[in-house]
């Protein structure tokens, strides 16, 4: 087998084992919290009798290990069970919310990734001159704002001062594509602000790094314009670090946007997970945690593979 292929297969296998380990870690983690689901559901209204009744009904009297393997077995067959707290089928609930998560992430990525790369290229082209300074200054500001500050800022600006968008970004089945776009406009703006800087700075740094190479000088001597040099020669050679930072940010857009979801009441996975963490609804936390973990691990494998392919030293180990 080709060594690169072997490495890739290895990474994927490791990823799957990792996923299994993550499911156990999440399970144990939730298990370690004080209180139990029955108490969390009934809250202040819990009595001994109602607690016992509810525990019995939810199957909480079984040992944790039994419940873990029962869950794992069902999950492998595509059955994520029902939420303990309200009996709603998890696969259905998650399916829709995961779609919303992906929708928000894709909208943000569709704007942020090309914009970041173009800005990065421009900044590298005018390295040290005013466009570079302007771009760096703006992205530095956006990366320095906590997400919730950016969120309230755009709510104030774009729903009160200029009433263009809605402060509540929920999307529902039956909405048209344009209605959805209009609904998620504010969270998308915030997320673009958050991820733009990181990717743009990486692009700029990677290009500048490559620009010091001898073949760039050759290209410049050939009489190509600076933008042509960057686009045709520098960019293809700087692609590996750029791709890996883009992927990191994609993972962030999927799994790390809880705060933005909370502020804009966006009905996606993060909010769903947080609600169920506080109620210790194990099957839901497991399921969502696994999806997040799978997305993260999958994207990281991709980043690893690209790094391996791009690095001759690693590709041909001594």
């Amino acid at each position, binding site marked *: 087998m080709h060594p690169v292929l072997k490495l890739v297969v290895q990474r994927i296998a490791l990823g799957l084992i990792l996923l299994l380990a993550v499911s156990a870690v999440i399970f144990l983690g939730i298990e370690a919290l004080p209180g139990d689901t029955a108490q969390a559901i009934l809250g202040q209204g819990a009595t001994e009798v109602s607690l016992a009744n509810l525990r019995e009904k939810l199957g909480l009297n079984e040992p944790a290990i039994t419940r873990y393997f029962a869950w794992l077995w069902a999950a492998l067959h595509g059955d994520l069970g029902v939420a303990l707290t309200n009996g709603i089928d998890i696969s259905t609930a998650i399916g829709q919310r995961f779609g919303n998560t992906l929708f928000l992430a894709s909208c943000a990525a569709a704007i942020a990734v090309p914009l970041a790369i173009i800005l990065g290229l421009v900044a590298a082209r005018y390295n040290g001159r005013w466009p570079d300074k302007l771009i760096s200054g703006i992205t530095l500001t956006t990366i320095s704002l906590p997400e919730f*500050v950016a969120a309230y800022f755009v709510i104030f600006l774009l729903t*009160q001062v200029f009433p263009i968008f809605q402060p509540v970004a929920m999307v529902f089945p039956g909405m048209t594509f344009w209605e959805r776009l209009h609904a998620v406009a504010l969270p998308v703006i915030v997320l673009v602000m958050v991820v733009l800087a990181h990717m743009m700075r990486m692009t700029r*740094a990677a290009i500048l790094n490559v620009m010091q190479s001898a073949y760039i000088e050759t290209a410049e001597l050939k009489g190509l314009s600076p933008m042509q040099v960057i686009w045709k020669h520098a960019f293809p050679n700087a692609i590996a670090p750029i791709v890996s930072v883009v992927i990191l940010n994609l993972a962030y857009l999927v799994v790390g946007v809880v705060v933005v979801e909370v502020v804009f009441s966006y009905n996606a996975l993060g909010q769903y997970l947080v609600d169920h963490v506080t109620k210790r609804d194990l099957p839901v936390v497991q399921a969502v945690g696994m999806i997040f973990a799978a997305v*993260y691990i999958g994207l990281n494998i991709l980043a690893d593979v690209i790094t391996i392919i791009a690095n001759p030293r690693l590709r041909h180990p001594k």
Partner: protein
Amino acid sequence: MKLPFSAVLGIFLTSSFLFMAVFAQFLAPYSISDPSGGVWEGPSATHWLGTDTIGRDIFSRLIYGGQITIFVALASSTLAFSLGAFLGFMAAVKGGWVEQVMSRLVDLVMAIPSLIVALVILSVLPLNLTVLILVIGLLDSTRVYRLSRAVAMDIAVMDYVEAAKLRGERQTWIIFREILPNALSPLVAEFGLRFIFAVLFISTLSFLGLGIQPPLTDWGGMVKENKDGLVYGKSAALMPALAIAALAISVNLVADWILSRTSSLKGGRGG
């Protein structure tokens, strides 16, 4: 070597923030907890930045809050660094199963979104500064581990390290004498970035109610307390938000300057 203007500005602002944090008790004109004016007053001669939701002086709270914010961020990123960098170097030098085990463990932790992990842990443990620092530091150390391992791996395949190995030097010697000096510059820059992410992370936790607890305060918590006034043009929430941004920018400027002398830039916003 001549310092660029942005670096001078960054160093100046960063040291001002540090100075303010260290001497908060002497600088703040009012108490952290006692109301000294009306609710949400605008800036005036007596209250330079106005008053907050129950009439406390924002300037004073900003100074005390800055002390806590900077202290927790500094402590947790120091923890993250000592731990993450050491283990990262170790993995790079040792290679083999040691590296595999550590890297997979780190993958395991990183695969679960850190904000979620923090929320779960902090909702159970008593909320005090030690717990907060430990949680943020440990979670962040995984990211430092990744960077240090990557940097160290690039250095470890260099000829001078190979030479040292062939000379039969001990691994700690290799880590501290060969790898550390050569990895220092990207790591220092990374420290700056990690510090900022720690500031943002604490602010986010406080915003979600699981960070710094009253009567202490931090900038994120101050934004949360005063955010409802924003929509009505009350500037109270803007001050701590600007403080977070100003601190982040000034540290970033310093980190950028250090980075500009190297070519590596890795690590991302906490996911």
